[in-house]
């Protein structure tokens, strides 16, 4: 029942935004998201990591076609839902100073997005998963379209068609799997896990799923929508996209790809892995030459998630554990980063690195918090980024030392472009306009401090996350071990 609660709090709240007055709607959205966070915390207290499908619900949706409303939690799901519901209040809070023309629609869409995201991470029926997967696309499209930058129409349409292309391929794959299930066909994930598919079919299915997920993640060469969309979207849209939505692709790989097409992965996984490595190196180099700070973060995000995808494809427990923890860390860090971009942009009216400089003089607190988020994203020990990247590289090394060596470049290149950007913004000669950069407001402090504390907590003591995720990840690996 808790699953239903977590799904329906945002779903019911979303249309209610339309009837609440313009000034109050942001507080309403915040309260709802905090309520949702409280429900998530409550779920954690009841959660037992060694049982699959907890708080499960299972109703027929279209019985004659074997389509069910089946959802539930295991270790992977609950961590992803926790990430979503932790970030949502921060994202809503970060928008408090925006002067929105239409706040009702804005917060309604954000809460609807939350509903769809929780749905994606808990669905245990292929059809339901697909519906939620697509459903998440609609609010973010409108958020980007209504509050985006000046080239929004072209960019958001490209983004939508790109992701829909992948999704439809996945739909064909899901229907194929559905038709393979014995007896009365079903979309149940367990039935999919139990299928024995021919290697040839698995090869095709691998591509159908991998392309869908690779577009969302994104992985080279399917990433071209991402920098434009991230740069042009409103800050909250970028946070939703980079912090949570791209995790849908990574989550999909773990839950819907690895256990279903293990032979397909053994055949093509190496190729996909090489794409991930290209993605890492290419986007790091691209980040290096960016002048727009937001675009730089967008490229660095491609590098980080490329590493996570490579860790997942390494098919060992270290890689998967690393992927889990890094998904959480990346979500938190990248939201922090984009919030910092937003603060700079709001105060300085520019994001161009060459026009900034010397901001450290004015706001020591901001300088420190920015530094910590930045160090976390370049994986310094004691921050959350280190734990994840260490495990990921460990997992990839077990798979292939050369690939690990290339993927490891992300750590070096990452620190180069990140520190360079930090230097350009915070240090050096004060810019003429630097006096406009005033101290942080209370809300900004709350957001950055909560992000920084999560960075340290997971960086110093990540064990609870491992314990929660371990049994679920082992379940996933069982399906793969049969093959090797």
């Amino acid at each position, binding site marked *: 029942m808790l699953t239903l609660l977590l799904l329906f709090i945002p779903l019911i709240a979303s249309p209610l935004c339309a009837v609440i007055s313009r000034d109050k709607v942001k507080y309403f959205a915040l309260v709802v998201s905090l309520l949702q966070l409280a429900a998530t915390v409550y779920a954690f207290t009841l959660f037992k990591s060694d049982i699959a499908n907890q708080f499960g619900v299972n109703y027929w949706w279209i019985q004659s076609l074997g389509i069910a409303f089946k959802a539930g939690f295991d270790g992977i799901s609950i961590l992803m839902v926790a990430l979503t519901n932790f970030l949502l209040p921060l994202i809503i809070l970060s928008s408090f100073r925006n002067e929105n023309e239409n706040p009702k629609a804005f917060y309604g869409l954000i809460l609807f997005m939350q509903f769809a995201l929780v749905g994606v991470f808990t669905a245990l029926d292929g059809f339901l998963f697909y519906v939620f997967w697509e459903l998440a696309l*609609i609010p973010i499209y409108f958020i980007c379209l209504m509050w985006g930058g000046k080239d929004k*129409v072209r960019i*958001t349409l490209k983004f939508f068609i790109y992701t829909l292309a992948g999704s439809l*391929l996945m*739909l064909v794959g899901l*229907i*194929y799997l559905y038709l393979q299930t014995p007896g009365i066909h079903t979309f149940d994930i367990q039935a999919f896990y139990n299928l024995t598919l021919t290697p040839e079919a698995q090869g095709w299915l691998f591509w159908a799923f991998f392309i869908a997920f690779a577009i969302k993640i994104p992985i080279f060469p399917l990433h071209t929508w991402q920098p434009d969309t991230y740069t042009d979207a409103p800050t909250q849209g970028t946070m939703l996209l980079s912090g949570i939505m791209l995790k849908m692709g990574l989550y999909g790989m773990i839950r819907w790809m690895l256990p279903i097409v293990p032979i397909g992965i053994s055949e093509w996984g190496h190729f996909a892995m090489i794409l991930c490595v290209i993605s890492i190196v290419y986007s790091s180099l691209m980040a290096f030459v960016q002048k727009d700070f937001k675009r730089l973060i967008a490229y660095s995000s491609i590098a980080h998630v490329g590493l996570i995808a490579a860790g997942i494809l390494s098919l060992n427990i270290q890689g998967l554990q690393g992927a889990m923890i890094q998904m959480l860390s990346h979500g938190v860090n990248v939201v922090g980063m984009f919030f910092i971009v937003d603060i700079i942009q709001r105060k300085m009216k520019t994001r161009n690195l060459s026009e900034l400089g010397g901001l450290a003089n004015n706001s020591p607190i901001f300088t420190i918090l920015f530094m910590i988020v930045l160090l976390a994203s370049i994986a310094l020990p004691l921050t959350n980024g280190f734990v994840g990247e260490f495990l990921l590289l460990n997992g990839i090394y077990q798979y292939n030392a050369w690939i690990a060596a290339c993927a490891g470049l992300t750590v070096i290149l990452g620190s180069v472009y990140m520190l360079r950007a930090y230097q350009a913004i915070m240090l050096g000669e004060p810019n003429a306009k630097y006096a406009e950069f005033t101290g942080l407001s209370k809300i900004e402090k709350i957001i950055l401090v909560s992000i920084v504390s999560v960075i340290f907590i997971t960086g110093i003591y990540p064990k609870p996350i491992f314990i929660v995720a371990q049994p679920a990840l082992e379940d996933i690996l069982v399906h793969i071990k049969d093959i090797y």
Partner: protein
Amino acid sequence: MNALIVLACLGIVAMMSEVLGFKKFLLPIVALGLVSVIGLFVMDWNTAIRYYNDMLYFDNYAIAFSAMVTVLTALWLIMSKEYFISTSSKAEHAALILFCLTGAIVMISYSDLSMLFIGIEILSISLYVLAASNKNDLRSNEAGLKYFLMGAFATGFLLFGITLIYGASGSFNLQEIANYISTNSGHLPMFVYAGVLLMLVGLLFKVSAAPFHFWAPDVYEGSPTLVTAFMSTVVKTAAFAAFYRLFATCFSDLSGWWGETIAFVAALTMLVGNVLAVMQQNFKRMLAYSSIAHAGYMLMAIVAMSHVSAGAIFLYTTAYSVASLGAFACLHTLGANNNEKIINLKGLIAKQPLNAGLLCLAMLSLAGIPPLAGFFAKYYLFYGVIQSGYLWLVMVAVLSSLIGVYYYFRVIYTMFLPREEEDGVLPQISGSHKILLTIAAILSLLMGIFPGILQGLL
């Protein structure tokens, strides 16, 4: 069957209203009549009776489709309220529409090729007149003439085909033709194949499938918007119901022979319709091409010929027609001052947010985005086609759906653009049009979230 009689009488009553002078009450009478027709159809459910020596056969398939076209006509009537008030010849309009509907129901429920022909003719002849009914408008005249010439041509093909089939089997009856084909399979005379081919061409003309689609955009654009809305929903649904019935009962044994052909036509239709729709600046013409593209999707169900095909066509035509009616309701108001450009939608979200949201839902349904009706219909269709092994056709459909998103979303984002001074005044979508738009959006949403309601029928 009773429903059909009531409907034909209703048409005659509508004609009489001019003479007997109760024109004022025409709209309530027609509305009441349609509701009672729907009621009669519902009462006939699960009876499956053959009428008049098996000329008409009201099985559940026919009843479901007949009830659906009647419901669509009733919905259409909401939008056309003004049509019945302002124009001088409203009695004729009402009668012609009712005869169209009668023809559509005969087409759906035929069990005999002669009835198919009669149904098509009743429908078409009324439509030729309706297409040209805006007699002071050159485009409307052009549409009527074009439709008439092309339609006559297509009917000719159909009739040749029927003749050849009759020549071989000695019967017009669907069941007897099917028996003839199955008993003589392997040594059928060549002209049976020619007959099937000619009938196929005739029907492809009627459903505006590529490469027989050239008449459709001009006719759709030229006809009065209300007639276009009727043509692209009710008429299309009836044409597909007739098409499927013919090929499923009569020619299913030959499916190995025509399957590939229709598959090719379907693929071509989807691509041509969608690609050309992308290039349109005119909303009405875009909807015309989109209607061609959707015909391609529906043809896929005929290709699949699986146990879900009938249900898939039913769901798809319903989802498509409902969403289209919503779009046409907007078009009808916005195009009031002859400005049917898509760009004329600029600023709709700021001026009329609710209407814009509802139009968004209709567009998303047409584009096949979950959780709207269009998505489930498309899923169900793909499911049937993949099951029958036409994976390549589904891939073409996927590709063309993506192209489709491009132009449906152009409508959506245009509403979000700011409206400038030179764009003129945005007409208010209100009254009956708003009601229809709301109903269309709500139905699209409901059928998407609870698709089981309609999916279980056939």
